[in-house]
């Protein structure tokens, strides 16, 4: 029997203990992987490459305040700007209040929107149809699949913010990776039914010529409106997304705190198990040593066992986290969770590394004690 075979056999010989330890570690690592994935999505990811040239201008205080329509033309005059489209959040309620029926609905300008969202792919003839029909709407292909919509279907929308029930016709369907699951319809259609909304927009999406233009153009736009009645805040799409997160409070410290607690918790669990399992084998260790196994050999055997157990738990946890995130991003009820969130390969490796290090650290002390047992006393030891 090889050494590694011996280690694996030993790891799973007390099946219940190993199983319980593995489950315990796996839940902790699930949480850790989840937290790391959230961290990565919010703070490290730069978003899809197509959005690197997109910036968003909104009211400096809050998205709840609309910007005047003339801001659009002023933004257009800034050097480096390719296209500007208005966008206003209409709501996320469809049919009833059920979360499963919820998806984002927004109004925009069909003529210019495709230019600021080049990552959305639409068949040209459908796009033309949407642009020609003022009551038309463009929906995500995935969304259409979910509700069984076809081109030409008519939907009645409702909004918690606007007291109207516009009836729109689906004229176009777009594909985007990751799915955006949103519906867009014409700003003008909303303006016609709501007089006071005329000449306003929630925010402006601007496409700049090169990624290098993002910073200077953002600055120029905010500088331009510095003395206007409504000051603006312009930022990259990623920063815009992040601003929703940072408004919740000190999220970074929060995530780090949870990660710290989780790592410490698995350390305790793993340490506990190893102490128990080695204590029960005092006699065996003495036999091994009597057979001529060196202290180093015994030490490495136990440490190896500890690492194997933690890693097994780690694999389960990472897989669990991947499933949870997949479920979250694909569940229609999850609003505000970025659809592109996933457990990436580096995150997996990092999680497993944490698991292995925890196994190593927690195995060291009990294994060291075991390797030091006196052979004669160990042989005499009873259970």
């Amino acid at each position, binding site marked *: 029997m090889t050494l590694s075979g011996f280690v694996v056999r030993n790891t799973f010989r007390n099946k*219940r*203990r190993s199983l*319980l*330890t593995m*489950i*315990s*570690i*796996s*839940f*902790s690592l*699930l*949480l850790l992987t*989840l937290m790391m994935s959230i961290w990565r999505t919010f703070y490290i990811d730069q978003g899809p490459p197509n959005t690197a040239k997109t910036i968003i201008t909104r009211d*400096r*205080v*809050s998205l*709840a305040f609309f910007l005047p329509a003339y801001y659009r033309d002023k933004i257009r005059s800034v050097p480096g700007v390719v296209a500007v489209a208005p966008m206003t959040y209409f709501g996320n309620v469809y049919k009833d209040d059920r979360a499963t029926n919820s998806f984002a609905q927004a109004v925009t300008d069909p003529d210019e929107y495709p230019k600021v969202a080049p990552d959305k792919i639409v068949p040209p003839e459908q796009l033309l149809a949407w642009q020609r029909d003022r009551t038309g709407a463009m929906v995500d292909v995935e969304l259409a699949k979910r509700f069984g919509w076809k081109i030409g279907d008519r939907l009645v929308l409702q909004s918690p913010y606007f007291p109207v029930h516009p009836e729109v016709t689906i004229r176009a369907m777009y594909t985007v990776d990751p799915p955006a699951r949103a519906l867009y319809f014409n700003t003008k259609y909303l303006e016609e039914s709501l007089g006071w909304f005329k000449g306003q927009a929630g925010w402006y999406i601007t496409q700049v010529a090169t990624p290098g233009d993002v910073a200077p153009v953002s600055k120029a736009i905010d500088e331009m409106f510095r003395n206007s*009645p409504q*000051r603006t805040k312009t930022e990259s799409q990623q920063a815009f997304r992040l601003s929703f997160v*940072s*408004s*919740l*409070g*000190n999220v970074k410290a929060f995530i780090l*705190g*949870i990660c710290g*607690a*989780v790592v*410490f*918790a*698995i350390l*305790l*669990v793993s*340490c*506990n*198990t190893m*102490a*128990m399992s080695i204590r029960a084998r005092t006699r065996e260790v003495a036999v091994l040593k009597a057979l001529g196994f060196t202290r180093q050999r015994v030490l490495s055997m136990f440490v190896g066992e500890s690492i194997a157990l933690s890693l097994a738990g780690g694999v389960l946890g990472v897989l669990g986290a991947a499933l949870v995130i997949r479920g979250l991003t694909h569940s229609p009820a999850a609003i505000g969770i970025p659809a592109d969130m996933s457990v990436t390969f580096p995150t997996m490796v990092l999680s497993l590394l944490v698991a292995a290090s925890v196994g190593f650290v927690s195995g060291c002390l009990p294994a060291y004690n075991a390797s030091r047992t006196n052979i004669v006393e160990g042989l005499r030891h009873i*259970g």
Partner: protein
Amino acid sequence: MAIPISYNVRNLRLRKGLTIMTALGIALTVTTAIFLMALLAGLQRAFVSSGNANNVLVLRKGSEAELSGGFDAALFPTLKVLPGIAKDSHGDPMVSGEWVVVIVLPRKDGTGEVNVTVRGMMPDGLEIRPSAKLIEGRWFQTGQREVVVSKSIRSRFSHANIGDTMEFGKGSWKVVGVFDAGGSAYESEIWADVNQMASDFDRQGGYSSAYLRATDPIAADALKNRVSDDQRLKLEGVLETEYYAKQTRSGAPIKIIGIVVAIIMAIGSSFAAMNTMYAAVAYRGREIATLRVLGFSRPSILTSFVLESLLLALLGAVAGILLMLPFNGMQTGTSNAVTFSEVVFSLQITWQVAMYAVIFALAMGLFGGLFPAWHAARQNILTALRG
């Protein structure tokens, strides 16, 4: 006959290392749960303590918040003479027309910008909010470009000390005083004279809200209905307590994340506790059999082991609470879903939070102890005695 608890206590003490490590694991889970519950308790306190049962807030009909409203100043005299309003120190009705705006200030530590509520009020506004106490300097004076800031604003933003000037609106404002609002939502505000504010933000001739101080809570309720029912006014009266209670929904995201995290960690800890208890049972096979021979019944063995597990969990809960106590009162902020500005609140480890933490830990202990205890109670006496 029941097995005395001292038997379990001694057993826990006998295997100190195992007990401490398992209890610490439970303690960590409890710590996380306490942290989240304390956050929510603090947030709730900030909103609940902001409202005074005697105060009626008047908004434009249909507007949900002070920020989204605004009504003509010509309506104000009508409000002033409504019955049931208390008298201020000068013998006049205690009412305050106010303007609320949100400004953006950079954080002192350079970690970005924060929305802050600035409230312009009439002199009576201070009398209407007796919970806010001046701790340094003096209140702002009518007709002057002066502001008073809350204690937490002073500590979180630069240029917010007495004698400093703040830049917002159309110019600079002098900081003349600091007030303590006792952890209420006012703790996140800057106060100034309403007329000065209105002219800075081009809002003369109107108010975003008005505060009426009734003589007692019953009069306040009557006043609220009177304002809402008056067809000429097109205004809506809200009790201040209700207005703030509604804002606690700002804590919903924290709540959801908190529940998910706490549950996942609790499952992990329960399995760890189960492991420890199984080990405890395995070590004591012969002992349990002896107890059975002595006449202790199966149910009493089951109870004894469940009790031991609960004891272990309780130890963890106490350790968790002690670990979190130093963080009691720690300040943090989150975005207020109604005012769009940051609301500052502090962690509150109340008795209720501590109690929930203990219940939470006991649930883990129960789940972790039940199966091993069942296993212990069902052991065959003869085999166990021989083993």
